[in-house]
């Protein structure tokens, strides 16, 4: 029994690297404590603590990074955790996403009369798990973090428990999620088993560690267990990303879930999945290039086409966002495939995710404002004359959808541009063709929506039935500032994408 070894292992547990995560967990706990202490007394306090607490965290992180952004990668926790500049960006991304989800939830929960503290707490805990997930470089941590995220989402999707839709969506997500977890787990097991197998050449000691696994796979790229393990792991991640054919759950779940949760799923969860996929294909599976490229390319093409085509006849906006999200997953997959040969494509993907976050939250923000009593029933038709009833929201919606559609001068365009350039450098012409078709198709439904919201303006001066809705919602100043800020950032990032330079120089 060699205790020294354990001592050395223990020494690598540098908790200081995980301060933001710890902060968030603490914040969640504080919220729960507050809930107990000031029960029903000062609800505003909880909202403020939740949101401002996270904003403070974001601010602190930004401040820290302004002093000097980490370069190079840091490995800690005996190889379980690896921090790279990209993961740092993703951590910021998740915190930002968490803030925005909390913000959206404030409005939503108030309207739906649902408890808030728990929601904020779960959101933060999921965020912590996602932050850990993108940094994990070993399958145990990876799995635990992933499952934390997944289980958290089960709860969030079914959060609106008086709504059968929400519960049904939760159940569907649960069954399919558990299935995908099982599949993923089996894949991990196979990889673990085969990579650590002493009978095989190049076997490694810690066969669940990404780096070790990479060296093993490089030595045994055709081992059938490696291949099936890879397939199963990728299938599990594809479920998170929403790539064909593991995308099928998305519309139902997105529709049933409370809108802030839909946003959370659509943005942060997807981002986590995509980033994990990036880590995997560039790390352990890098040697499987010859089969991953065709596989992921096919999946990307199918994803783009399926998402866009299916969204075409869709009138429910939550399903529409889900399906268009599938399409975006497809574009992101293009970036992932490209990243196997072009290094900077990682940052192209990250940048795309950032623009996607800004645009999506803008749109979801408007959706939350527009949602009626039945959260799952939001049709495109409800947006008729929004431009007249609330020009500001219509503007935010237009900017958001325009950015999602990839129209200059909005951020989404730059995102797509970077992905395209990367794909070109990687020589993925087929994927580019599919992306083009996808973008063109997507114009139809994005513009259909914009058209509904904006185009009828000033056409019917006389009071139409829609007119009555005008007074039903008022948008508070904070909401205006936030949504306006998102739109402004979307435009700003499109016109002066200096963020790209920052990312590329990492």
């Amino acid at each position, binding site marked *: 029994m060699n205790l020294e070894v354990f001592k050395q292992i223990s020494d690598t547990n540098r908790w200081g690297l995980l301060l933001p995560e710890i902060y968030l967990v603490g914040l969640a706990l504080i919220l729960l404590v507050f809930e107990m202490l000031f029960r029903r007394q000062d609800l505003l306090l909880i909202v403020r603590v939740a949101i401002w607490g996270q904003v403070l965290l974001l601010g602190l992180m930004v401040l820290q990074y302004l002093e000097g952004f980490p370069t190079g990668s840091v490995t800690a926790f005996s190889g379980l955790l690896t921090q790279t500049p990209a993961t740092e960006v993703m951590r910021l991304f998740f915190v930002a996403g968490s803030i925005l989800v909390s913000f959206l939830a404030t409005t939503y929960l108030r309207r739906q009369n649902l408890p808030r503290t728990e929601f904020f707490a779960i959101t933060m805990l999921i965020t912590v798990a996602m932050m850990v997930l993108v940094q994990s470089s070993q399958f*145990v941590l990876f799995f635990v973090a992933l499952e934390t995220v997944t289980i958290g989402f089960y709860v969030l999707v079914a959060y609106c428990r008086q709504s059968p839709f929400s519960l049904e969506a939760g159940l*569907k997500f649960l*069954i399919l999620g558990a299935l995908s*977890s099982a599949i993923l787990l089996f894949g991990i097991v196979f990889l*673990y*088993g085969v990579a650590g*197998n002493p009978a095989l050449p190049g076997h490694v000691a810690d066969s669940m560690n990404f780096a070790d696994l990479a060296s093993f796979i490089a030595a045994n790229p055709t081992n059938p267990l490696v291949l099936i393990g890879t397939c199963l792991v990728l299938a599990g991640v594809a479920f998170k990303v929403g790539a064909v054919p593991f995308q099928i759950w998305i519309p139902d779940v997105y529709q049933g879930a409370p809108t802030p949760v839909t946003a959370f799923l659509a943005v942060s969860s997807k981002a986590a999945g995509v980033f994990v996929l990036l880590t995997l294909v560039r790390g352990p599976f890098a040697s499987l290039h010859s089969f991953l490229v065709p596989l992921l390319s096919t999946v990307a093409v199918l994803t783009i086409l399926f998402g866009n085509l299916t969204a075409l006849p869709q009138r429910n906006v939550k399903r529409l966002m889900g399906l268009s999200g599938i399409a975006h997953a497809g574009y992101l997959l293009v970036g992932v495939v490209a990243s196997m040969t072009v290094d900077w494509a990682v940052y192209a993907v990250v940048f795309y995710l950032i623009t996607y976050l800004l645009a999506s939250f803008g749109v979801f923000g408007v959706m939350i404002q527009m949602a009626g009593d039945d959260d799952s029933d939001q049709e495109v038709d409800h947006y008729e004359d929004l431009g007249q009833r609330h020009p500001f929201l219509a503007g935010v919606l237009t900017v958001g959808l325009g950015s999602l559609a990839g129209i200059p001068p909005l951020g989404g365009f730059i995102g797509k541009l970077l992905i395209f350039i990367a794909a070109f450098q990687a020589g993925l012409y087929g994927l580019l063709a599919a992306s083009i078709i996808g973008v063109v198709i997507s114009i139809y439904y994005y513009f259909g929506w914009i058209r509904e919201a904006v185009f009828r303006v000033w056409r019917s001066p006389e009071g139409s039935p829609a007119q009555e809705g005008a007074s039903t919602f008022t948008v508070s100043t904070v909401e205006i500032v936030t949504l306006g800020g998102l739109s402004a950032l979307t435009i700003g990032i499109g016109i002066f994408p200096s963020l790209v330079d920052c990312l590329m120089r990492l």
Partner: protein
Amino acid sequence: MTLSLNSFLFVSGLLFAIGFFGVLLRRNVLVIFMSLEMMLNAAILALIAFSRFNGTMDGNLFVFFIITVAAAEIAVGLAIIVALFRKRQSVMVEQLSSLKN
């Protein structure tokens, strides 16, 4: 004949298949859920077998986490099922398809 890794894996594979089969066949959400647990267990079995044959502890340690995760998953899952049953008075998947298209 000595115990080969393949025999364990075969049992594990069978269990996984049976679990999948159950998910596909059964209409009762609870049974589906149980089938999913069966699949997780199949993975655990394979993991332990690999761990033993690889001679590394990591597999066995991983099982701890898997069991924890499974437990948490079941807790949440059962809560959802119960809540849904209260709304719909049914746990049959056919009745749980109001979200579609």
